[in-house]
């Protein structure tokens, strides 16, 4: 069964700290996405990658960066976290498979 794993499950982070959210897929699919979910706003696309070595900006990219060194891994980095980045973050592979999410709280 195709799967996406995310780590950590949850994290509390002090403002100004750097944080990397991990995402790994096991089906070697080309397209991967990072979304953030906020109450009443649904999910909003942060960054995406159509294939290894390429990335693109989504709807809300500011304060976030991604890399795609290989097909399976798509980490999301917050270089200097701010409280407005408190959210639940979902990694997705194509439109069908979403990871379980990372709940991030920035204090």
């Amino acid at each position, binding site marked *: 069964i195709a799967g996406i794993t995310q780590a950590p499950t949850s994290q509390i982070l002090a403002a100004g700290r750097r944080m990397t959210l991990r995402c790994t897929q096991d089906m070697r699919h080309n397209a991967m996405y990072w979304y953030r979910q906020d109450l*009443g706003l*649904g*999910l909003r*696309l942060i960054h995406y990658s159509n294939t290894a070595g390429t990335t693109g900006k989504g709807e809300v990219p500011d304060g976030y960066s991604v890399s795609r060194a290989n097909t399976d891994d798509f980490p999301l980095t917050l270089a200097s976290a701010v409280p407005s980045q408190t959210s639940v973050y979902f990694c997705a592979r194509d439109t069908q498979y*979403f990871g*379980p*999410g990372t709940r991030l709280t920035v204090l």
Partner: protein
Amino acid sequence: AQSVTQPDIHITVSEGASLELRCNYSYGATPYLFWYVQSPGQGLQLLLKYFSGDTLVQGIKGFEAEFKRSQSSFNLRKPSVHWSDAAEYFCAVGPIKAAGNKLTFGGGTRVLVKP
């Protein structure tokens, strides 16, 4: 720019009753439409999608949705809800044949099921 509106933030329905969740979209071309369900503390699960063809789409868990181009709508329905259908539901729209399916989501509708 594409957008999705789910007018109902909350819906309460009795177990066994029918359910309809509304979704209206704004998109400049032929859309690729989706419905997802999210149980508490879980990720999203794809219920169904519409790309082309028959405008009535069948999905998993007994759900169906109807695409109405004239109304820019893609409403989700289920004839008889079960307590396990209590969850949040998201409608989404994306481009067809674009490089990657960058989806735009609605704000979600939370469904409560009364015994």
